[in-house]
């Protein structure tokens, strides 16, 4: 169709949304699609399971059993696994559901869009785990764990840092490969469990080590974990920096990758 008399584009007055506006819009989409009647039971189970487990298993040795659940199981296993499942594939999930085109064709740079979407999903996870963490601490209070109130700060900070770090890493793995679960589990078993468990300085490569250092500000946790080979502030910064760097790298990967499916049906 040769049309020499084609149209002059009208002037573009407004390139796109500002960051706050876009973040607000994505946040509304994320929380409103998560907080639904259909998804609520699953979320309640996730939030209430660990406090219940703590109450059941800690009846004989209050401190040790509770710390085992809160530190080893909750911070060491549940958070990394939930991050891997929830945060590795927001883009893939949207693409597979067919809803990505509605978002990805909006006037946002691809890196910005990815970082905002990641941030919204992370914020949602932080809120859910804040509730779960407080319930877990309430269970500790009920079990009369000594000085439990002193654990609130270090525990919640360690949890928040762990979520940032493992979410960023999961997002990167999720964009690099479709088999992110396999790669994530491999990473977890080699780096977090394997290297992280070696009682020398090499364990600083493990994010779980830094989570343990942050929570070890609480003395009973320090005695339980015996991981006092670092300062909490530096470990906290390592967790946040790892999460941010990994998320930025993931955004750069997303900038160059297509997630629009295959050829026409």
């Amino acid at each position, binding site marked *: *169709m*040769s*049309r*020499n*008399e*084609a*149209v*002059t*584009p*009208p002037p*573009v007055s*407004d*390139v*796109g*949304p500002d960051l706050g*506006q*876009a973040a*607000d*819009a*994505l946040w*509304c*989409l994320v929380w*409103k*699609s998560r907080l*639904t009647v*259909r998804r609520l039971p699953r979320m309640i189970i996730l939030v209430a399971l660990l406090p219940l487990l703590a109450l059941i298993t800690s009846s004989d040795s209050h401190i040790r059993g509770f710390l085992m659940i809160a530190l080893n199981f909750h911070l060491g296993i549940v958070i990394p696994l939930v991050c891997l499942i929830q945060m590795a594939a927001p883009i893939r999930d949207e693409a597979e*559901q*067919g*809803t990505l*085109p*509605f*978002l*990805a*064709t*909006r*006037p*946002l*740079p*691809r890196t910005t869009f990815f970082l905002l979407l990641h941030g919204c999903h992370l914020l949602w996870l932080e809120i859910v785990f804040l509730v779960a963490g407080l319930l877990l601490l309430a269970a500790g209070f009920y079990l009369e764990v000594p000085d439990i109130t002193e654990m609130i700060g270090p525990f919640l900070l360690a949890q928040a840092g762990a979520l940032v770090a493992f979410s960023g890493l999961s997002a990167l793995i999720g964009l690099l490969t479709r088999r992110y679960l396999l790669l994530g589990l491999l990473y977890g078993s080699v780096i977090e469990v394997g290297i992280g468990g070696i009682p020398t300085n090499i364990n600083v490569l493990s994010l779980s080590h830094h989570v343990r250092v942050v929570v070890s500000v609480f003395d009973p946790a320090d005695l339980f974990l015996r991981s006092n080979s670092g300062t909490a502030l530096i470990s906290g910064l390592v967790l946040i920096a790892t999460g941010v760097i990994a998320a930025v790298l993931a955004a750069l990967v997303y*900038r160059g990758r*297509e997630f*629009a499916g*295959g*050829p*026409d*049906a």
Partner: protein
Amino acid sequence: MTPIIQAKGLSRFYGIVMGLNNVSFEIGDGLTGLVGPNGAGKTTLIRLITGQIRPSAGDLLVFGQRPWNRPDVLRRIGYCPEGDAIHGELNPIDWLVSLGCLSGLNKATALARSVQMLDRVGLEAAHRRKSVGRFSKGMKQRVKLAQALIHEPDLLVLDEPMNGLDPMGRREISDVLLKLAEGGVHILISSHILPELESLCSQLVMMNWGRVLAAGSQQHIRNDLHTWSERVTIRCDQPSVLARHLLDGGLIRGFEIEPDSDAVILTLQDPPDFYRRWTQVVLESQVAVFEIRSETRSLNQIFERVTT
């Protein structure tokens, strides 16, 4: 002055699978129909136009720029994807407000526009606070169209928007599109059913096997495609003799004799050449011709013929 969409040697491959193969065309203003059977490459082309994928080779310009990762281009495009996947947990108002804000509107404007667009596409007020996931396919199509319109784009790209709509719904949406086009919005609308677009679009792009078969006004395409496979019926006293002479003269590709009516149906090799030379061949064959009849086909018949 530049066309709205301009493709030059555009190809797109998915591994070894071909989506688009070296297509070149231009799309100007107004309503343009993109038509082709399933697998023709329409959705691939639309994904390229809306910046979801990049070309494997060649170039595609929308408003004079490559659309991949270009917010200034995407700001001017409204896109309604194929299929009925939608953020089903949300109600249409919430969904449209969020998408409107992502397109650069503030919340108050996005809310006002949401209501306005849902009015325009004919979604009844009673359904506007229900989850989109509970909607029928036709209702989802209307909401999808509303989200494409919310930021008042200059170019509206609609991938099979009539799917799932009843005849009345199709007419309503057609009216909406015609009004938008009258208001200066450029519209590219895809369908695998030509009659759906024939009455709506002044311009057409016909696709098959990842290639553009024809592009332009309906009349231009009719003339262009008519030469592809024209058939002529001649009634005469010796059909087989005439057919042999025409075949020997290289004027036809094939023929079919109807013994009951003394007619021969000819498939022409090159229609302009046939009409130039056929009288001479008939004179040489000494056959008495009683009637000659050329098939006049509708655009749809031509389209079906070249795409099957």
